[in-house]
């Protein structure tokens, strides 16, 4: 099955980014495919290159980068939401790309399921 994932909240403040990641990981382990992870609202903050969380806890941004690299997952950050919140190419973490809301709708159309993680 192909899953689309929508992440509506930023890293650390809400559990959404964590739950979304664990869901994606479990789906991949079961042999499913992730069509796209789309970051909207404060979810765009999952894509900042400038994050420096404490060493003894998970690094949410790097986790996404790693997952995307290992499994060739499309991590898309909504351009409008990103511009509002100061996420641009120059501070975008590796593995993420900035694009339009159309990518979210496309995921809804092309994936078998679209799951939203938010507040």
């Amino acid at each position, binding site marked *: 099955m192909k899953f689309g994932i929508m992440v509506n909240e930023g890293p650390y403040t809400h559990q959404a980014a964590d739950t979304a990641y664990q869901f994606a990981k479990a789906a991949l382990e079961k042999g499913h495919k992730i069509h796209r992870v789309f970051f*909207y*609202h404060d979810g765009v903050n999952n894509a900042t290159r400038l994050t420096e969380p404490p060493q003894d806890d998970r690094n949410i941004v790097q986790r996404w980068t790693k997952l995307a690299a290992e499994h060739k997952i499309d991590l898309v950050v909504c351009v409008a939401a990103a511009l509002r919140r100061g996420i641009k190419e120059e501070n975008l973490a590796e593995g993420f790309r900035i694009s339009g809301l*159309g990518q979210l709708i496309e995921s809804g159309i092309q994936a078998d399921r679209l799951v939203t993680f938010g507040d």
Partner: protein
Amino acid sequence: MTESTGGIEMEEATSGVVKKFLYVNRKAPYGTIYALESLEVVLVAAAFDQDVSLAFLDDGVYQIVKGQHTKGIDVKNFSPTYRALEGYDIEKLYVEKESMEARGLKTEDFLVDVKVVSAAEMTDIMTGQDVVLSF
């Protein structure tokens, strides 16, 4: 690809597939950004010729109330945009009766034409959807 489709080649994206998309609005406007940004999704989604419905329940019913004057809070009043939906062929706007009544609202209070449905009817509408987006 155009900006209005958010960077998508339409034919490739849909290849004729039409799904039932439901946008669920349960939060009040201005206190958080969800109302505004969910509307932005709906506007982009209009280009994809899917079967779109909007559901307003719980505090989401406040999103479409008339008379929003936002000068005092210095935030853009985006409520007129709901009136533009019709022009995009998005006409299935459902408001839940129980949510409306609990908040003392009547259909005259809304700035767009809506279909008022009971929670039971809303349940049926929701259950029949292919894709449900919550904000």
